[in-house]
């Protein structure tokens, strides 16, 4: 399920969550938490940190919920905007980009202990592979193939044209294909 795919009950959840209804809050978490977590995990490469950032994003969502108004901006897109802002804030505080250099990848990314092993294997491989990409290519790949946004949604999120995102996507997949051919 993509980050921006709205649930039919979403509006009702939002209205009830504004009043502090715990069930509505749980429903919003259930629907969106994985998408936000995945985005953050593949951008920071650390499951524990991604969990903390996800928690921050949702707490911010609760704080800002009374101010959220659906004016052409779907709830998922609004939530994603919070996630992106939180990520940028994290990087700013760290004073550096999140992913370590390729030569430091021998130890592999840190993953949560309670994620199934096959998932860890895939996730680890993907995170290693993402390191061959440029920052923009990585953002396109994460949003399009790992979060599940459409081409138009990616373009809007990144503030780029659809054509530019297509070109970035093509170059990113070419680079990843070459990398995978080498490591397999």
């Amino acid at each position: 399920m993509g980050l921006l795919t709205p649930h039919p009950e979403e509006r009702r959840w939002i209205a009830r969550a504004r009043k502090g209804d715990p069930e509505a809050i749980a429903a919003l978490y259930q629907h969106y938490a994985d998408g936000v977590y995945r985005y953050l995990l593949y951008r920071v490469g650390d499951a524990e940190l991604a969990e903390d950032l996800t928690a921050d994003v949702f707490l911010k969502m609760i704080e800002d919920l009374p101010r959220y108004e659906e004016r052409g901006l779907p709830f998922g897109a609004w939530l994603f905007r919070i996630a992106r802002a939180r990520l940028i804030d994290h990087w700013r505080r760290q004073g550096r980009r999140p992913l370590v250099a390729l030569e430091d990848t021998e130890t592999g990314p840190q993953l949560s202990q309670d994620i199934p092993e096959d998932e860890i294997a895939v996730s680890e491989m993907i995170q290693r592979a993402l390191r061959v990409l440029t920052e923009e290519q990585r953002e396109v790949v994460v949003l399009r193939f790992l979060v599940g946004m459409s081409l138009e949604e990616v373009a809007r999120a990144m503030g780029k044209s659809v054509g530019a995102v297509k070109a970035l996507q093509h170059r990113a997949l070419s680079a990843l294909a070459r990398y995978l051919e080498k490591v397999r």
Partner: protein
Amino acid sequence: MDPKRDAHEIELLERCLCRLEQGADLETCLREVPEAIPLRPLLETALWLQRGQEVALSPAARRRLIRQGQLRAARRAAAPQASRPALRWGWALVAALGLILVLLSAVGAAEASLPGEPLYPVKRAVEGLVTLGMSPEERALYLAERRWSEFEASAARGRWLPDLAEESLARLEEAARLGAEGPAGPAARLRALYERQGVLLEEAAAVAPPDVRSALTRARQRWAGLAPVLGRPEGGIPEPTRAVETPVLPEPTAEILRERTHTPPGLEKRETPSAPRTPPGQEKTPPGQEKKETPRPVRTPPGQEKKDTPGPPRGQDSAPPGDQGPKGPPGRRR
């Protein structure tokens, strides 16, 4: 690389990705779009990346996050709803008070400003508001006094501003015409201002720089022309003093100071209860009274004889006869 071929390849890739997203498998897609066969490694990579979507929060982490969110929402809901608007109102109040404080400071600072200074327009604007509730004669007199005070203050700094004198005279004339039958208070103020004007205008015509002297002389003539309306000033209307004849006199001696305490004949009974204090440096004879005497004796304007110029103890006079009071430019004497 050929850009045209590149663009074609990019479009082909996107077409196949869309088909894969719609649920088609890779082989079907390549059968449908045979041109995309060279893109097979890229499409396989895209499919491999999509396996990353299986990654999700662990159930424990999910429960923890949900609990945390529910707690926060509950705290938020439990927090007194009134406190947030109250806080907002509090901030608004603080901001409003700050603004008022800034405005009051600006108004206070503007009060002492003179023409040509940045805050002078503020002073005039505030004046406009202050005088809104006044009667026409009260307003004219108030403005006449204020313009004259500015004229005096700027003259003390060596700046002669004939426009201020003219405006003050015009207001005085207006006040006199409007309030000729008014109560004793305003009438006394009118009279006092008229006397003040005469003293400084006479001096201005003598000591002001040549470029403004003619304008000040005109102002003085206008002042003299007000005599029919306001009554002749004490001692009559003096002839303008010529600048070349203005001597710079030494500091006042004890004798002169004592002489200032004496009330000139005919002025003792005059009642000017609310007459303003004569500005320092103007303690001399109302224009015209002793103009023939050179040097002129210094006299106190009516109504201020007993309080403004305390005389020295008798018997301490040591100044030689004929020694006169101060007569330098007003700026130096203030």
